[in-house]
């Protein structure tokens, strides 16, 4: 398939990014935790979340309060920290770091915020929050408006809620806006909290692992849930300096058209998304240095993904799932896992696939079993989700 418009289109440069997870409040803190082999998923006994102990990856509540209170104190208008929901605090804290470091101007008419979330402020359905927060906050556009207003973005945020591909789709959408010249700067932010709502749902699917998840491993027994927020600033402006920059060079989505809760049997559709992303980036699968897989650690997902990687002729490429560190973070996943992939490119380091010991998919993959130094210039990030959706994005150093 042709990509005739590529030549005239602008590059999408990756500027600052941020990760807030159980492993830290900045990308650097998270990478240091990963390097130290820290696992953020812990057996959590919280009756407000689930009647029985369950493995979860949670952001430290006290540390979040401290950081968010400090942001509110520095804020130009006075705001009461406790007037924000947990997810709003996570998102604002994450976006604040990116904006601050890049000195980004949210008031500029060519600056856009894209929000990726699957469930937004879903905890507000719980009785304990009903008196405190207006029911309207359950609407994703109201959540987005609160974040928009905090920073003063002039453009109405674009909201993407497309199951587990939301984060990757938000990044693809951002790069399309930048390439077409619609916007010059886009902040892609995503987040989801760990809630009773989501835990109960996945538990009813019997999709939750009793132990921290083990993506691609023979003994994997389902996914672990995690809460996180992430933000990435993408721009058409070429950065100053001579060092090579990471760009978002291609991306596509596809649908299995097979089943709403089970992935494709063949992996053909995810493979198609991968092929399209590679084609747009102008590289062969053999030129990839790393694949940041979706790797939820459910039997079906990991098998489908392995088939897709093989169909795209990338089975030799080093691959990992980052979910062994912080679980499945839903609307944040595509963003924070891309941020780690970008860090791998900047640091020229690959990080091991936590939880993996024995190959557990029918196709042999080159799964990373240890951290190592390597030239990392071209990376693919994939994602798949309920509703049969798949997405892939390619990052490339230029």
């Amino acid at each position: 398939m042709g990509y005739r418009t590529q030549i005239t289109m602008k590059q999408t440069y990756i500027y600052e990014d941020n990760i807030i997870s159980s492993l830290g409040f900045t990308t650097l803190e998270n990478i240091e935790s990963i390097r130290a082999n820290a696992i953020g998923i812990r057996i959590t006994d919280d009756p407000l979340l689930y009647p029985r102990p369950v493995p979860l990856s949670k952001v430290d509540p006290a540390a979040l309060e401290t950081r968010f209170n400090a942001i509110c104190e520095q804020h130009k208008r006075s705001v009461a920290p406790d007037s924000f929901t947990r997810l709003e605090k996570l998102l604002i804290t994450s976006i604040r770091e990116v904006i601050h470091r890049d000195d980004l101007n949210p008031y500029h008419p060519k600056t856009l915020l894209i929000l990726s979330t699957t469930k937004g402020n879903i905890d507000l359905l719980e009785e304990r929050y009903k008196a405190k927060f207006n029911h309207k906050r359950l609407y994703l556009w109201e959540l987005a408006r609160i974040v928009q207003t905090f920073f003063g973005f002039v453009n109405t945020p674009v909201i993407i809620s497309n199951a587990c591909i939301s984060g990757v789709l938000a990044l693809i959408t951002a790069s399309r806006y930048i390439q077409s010249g619609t916007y010059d700067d886009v902040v892609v932010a995503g987040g989801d909290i760990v809630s009773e709502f989501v835990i109960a749902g996945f538990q009813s699917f019997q999709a939750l692992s009793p132990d921290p998840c083990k993506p691609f491993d023979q003994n994997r027994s389902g996914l672990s849930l995690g809460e996180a927020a992430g933000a990435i600033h993408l721009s058409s402006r070429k950065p100053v300096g001579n060092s090579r920059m990471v760009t978002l060079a291609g991306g596509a989505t596809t649908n299995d058209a097979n089943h709403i809760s089970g992935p494709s049997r063949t992996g053909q559709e995810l493979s198609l998304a991968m092929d399209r992303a590679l084609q747009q980036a102008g590289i062969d699968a053999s030129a990839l240095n790393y694949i940041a897989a979706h790797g939820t650690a459910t039997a079906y997902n990991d098998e489908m993904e392995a088939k897709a990687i093989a169909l795209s002729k990338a089975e030799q490429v080093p691959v990992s799932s980052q979910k062994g560190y912080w679980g499945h973070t839903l609307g944040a996943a595509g963003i924070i896992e891309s941020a780690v992939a970008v860090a791998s490119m900047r640091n020229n380091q690959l990080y091991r696939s936590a939880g993996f010991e024995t190959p557990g998919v029918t196709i042999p993959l080159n799964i990373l079993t240890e951290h190592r130094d390597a030239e990392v210039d071209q990376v693919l990030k994939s994602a798949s989700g309920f509703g049969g959706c798949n997405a892939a994005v390619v990052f490339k150093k230029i």
Partner: protein
Amino acid sequence: MRQFITAYTLIDGFKCMVNGRLLFYQENILTFADFIKALYKQEQVNYPKFYKMDALGKLGFIASELLLRNKDIKSYPPELTGVVLSNSSSSLDTDIAHNETIRNREHYFPSPSVFVYTLPNIVIGEICIRNGIKGENAFLVSESFNSELIAGYVTDLFSRELVKGCLCGWIEVLGNRCEAFLAWVENQADVAETKPGPFNPVPFDAEHLKLLKNQNDR
């Protein structure tokens, strides 16, 4: 190459129009469940999976069915067809239903068949399964129908040659309030090949999307 809307469905206030012609309206209908069942029966849609869907799934399925059943979308490669939908309340209607199953610890019965629908893009999955659509898909949320957002997103897919045909629009259900506006968009050259029908294709842009969706308000 320009894109055209070659068919559309509009559902509002338990009234259903296809390509500008009234297809269904019964004055005595008061609930969404009654409306969607009556519409399904009248149009003799035969798709057993329909009964398993949540309200958003049913509305999106029927709205797309009424629009695509006279379209030869199989003439396009599946991977060059797409679906881009939007709404205001995401999956809140089913979120509330799932929440009811977990509110009481003594009466705790979460179900995967409900939980799976607590994502707005499941309706896209249902439409893709029915029609074998395998290309680009996206679900966007906005406070009200944003014709510029949808037109911009879908036009970009065409300009990148990622789609040759795309279903797009608005699909909203909350309790008994429902509203659907779906349009099938394709390239001009392909339009010329389709048989003359009761509906003259209109150019695909934000202005025409808005006009078609709001025609009842005038």
